[in-house]
């Protein structure tokens, strides 16, 4: 259902029989606050609540529904417009080599998420393999290798190769030889100010031409979400988004800005550190949690 703070805001409004502009203003403020606390972009929050205010005060109600239901519908529709109506799965052509590349800001959860996706698809009968193309972070090789071992999934890396593009190419070649259907490519963390790393990401993508590039976003990411996602989109074609660390108290509102910036849907969410802590994105559930 709707988040409980939104529900209580609506109860205040619709205890009254007459639409009171003051009460609507108060409702709008409550919705604004809930969305801001959830880390939704400030400008987006203003746009959403402006729409809610206009429609809540609209004299012409759609037939057969109450004013309260109408306002709820407006809030939901506005969020659904950004989050998508239903979940979109990863496209994997069985029997073919599907290369999926993970990118994202430092510490967002790329390596851990690859471990989870490997387990997820291996369980579903897809031959999965993982490649470490992170040439920078100390111990990245060991981290991914240990995660791959947990799910008994083939792993490839080369600690002596210092070029990320070469790592990706070699790894892809090795995985193809093994007949792996879903090949997950791990890359180093990077942010929008690191121009040479952004270029490196583009070079990797141009070289191995992944089926899909997944942007991994930390669920705690704040008002920077939109501009950071934009920088990734400008450099490469982002196919989908995964939001991590939603097992904590963060609401993940930055995700909305990321979707808006990349035009890519969220496909999975991360709910913990274990290899089973992943689930397909559910827009209704996500919106409900957002509204607190």
């Amino acid at each position: 259902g709707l988040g409980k703070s939104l529900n209580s805001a609506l109860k205040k409004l619709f205890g009254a029989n007459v639409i009171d502009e003051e009460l609507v203003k108060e409702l709008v403020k409550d919705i604004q606050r809930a969305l801001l606390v959830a880390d939704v972009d400030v400008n987006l929050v203003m746009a959403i609540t402006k729409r809610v205010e206009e429609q809540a005060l609209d004299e012409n109600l759609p037939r057969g529904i109450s004013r309260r239901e109408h306002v709820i519908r407006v809030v939901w529709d506005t969020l659904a417009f950004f989050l998508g109506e239903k979940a979109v799965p990863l496209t994997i052509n069985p029997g073919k080599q599907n290369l999926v590349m993970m990118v994202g800001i430092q510490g967002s959860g790329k390596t851990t998420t690859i471990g989870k996706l490997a387990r997820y698809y291996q369980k579903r009968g897809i031959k999965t393999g993982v490649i470490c193309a992170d040439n920078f972070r100390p111990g990245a090789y060991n981290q991914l290798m240990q995660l791959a071992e947990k799910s008994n999934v083939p792993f490839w890396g080369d600690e002596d190769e210092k070029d990320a593009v070469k790592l990706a190419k070699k790894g892809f070649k090795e995985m193809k030889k093994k007949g792996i259907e879903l090949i997950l490519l791990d890359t180093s963390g990077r942010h929008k100010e690191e121009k040479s790393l952004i270029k490196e990401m583009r070079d990797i993508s141009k070289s191995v031409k992944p089926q899909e590039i997944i942007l991994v976003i930390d669920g705690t990411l704040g008002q920077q979400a939109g501009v950071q996602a934009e920088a990734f989109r400008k450099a490469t074609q982002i196919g989908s988004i995964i939001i991590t660390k939603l097992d904590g108290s963060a609401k993940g509102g930055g995700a909305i800005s990321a979707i808006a910036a990349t035009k890519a849907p969220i496909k999975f969410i991360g709910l913990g550190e274990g290899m089973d802590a992943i689930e397909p994105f559910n827009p209704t559930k996500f919106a409900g949690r957002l509204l607190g």
Partner: protein
Amino acid sequence: KELSDKNLEDSVWELQMVLIQNDVAVEVAEQICELTKEKILGDRAGRLENLSKVFKKAIYESVLEILTPEHPLDPLEFASEKKQKGEVTTILFVGVNGTGKTTTLAKMANLFKKNGFSVVIAAGDTFRAGSIEQLERHAERLGIRVIKQDYGADAAAIAFDAIAHAKAKHIDIVLIDSAGRMQSNKNLLDEMKKIARVADPDIKLFIGDALAGNDVLSQAKEFHKAIEIDGAVLTKVDADPSGGAALSIAYVTGRPVVFVGVGQEYDDIEQFDPEWFAQRLIG
């Protein structure tokens, strides 16, 4: 002319939005603006025309005040004084997952070493894949010893061993790494409390991500409640965030932000500059 309550409301709201857009937690922005507004109304100092200017100046001063520590913490100075007494300085690094604890520990190890201190590191993250190897790689490059055990071992015991080792070998600094943990996970908070209790560190540093939004408030609040933080380090400031996280952390803990992380290399650590941040948040 007296300040009209209604016009002040507009300035208050506007500046509140500026702070929120700069990643200051909503609750912190609201409280700072509310307290500053009351102060202005109490002073009745400004003229109606200069209202937004007066309020903005007052907010800037409030922000600067929150960011400027009453009791500054300089880990190098602290360690120096302890070294003169022949004592070991123990520093514990805590924070949620992926904020940069291990990297910050390595940067500070480098900093201490460059300033003539001997350092030993405790591999206190025995949970996450590759955490021990990551620390070992850093330590290897810096020429520093790591006290470690296997994955799954008791972090508090490893910290204890490292401190005993430092005392026996007359090593100046013990840096204790710990696993990332969500502030909503009671078991992991309890584990952290145990590490702090057993190791009894001189300095407990909360490592916060400058890119985090409202969640950083609850992180700092819960970590402070659990083990009483002495200071914070704000990482990934090179990613060009507006830095509001610094304000939320300082506000809810009353403790200073000591350093900022400005990149992934060992030298990418700087002193926290309250005025620079205040300018960025309000200027």
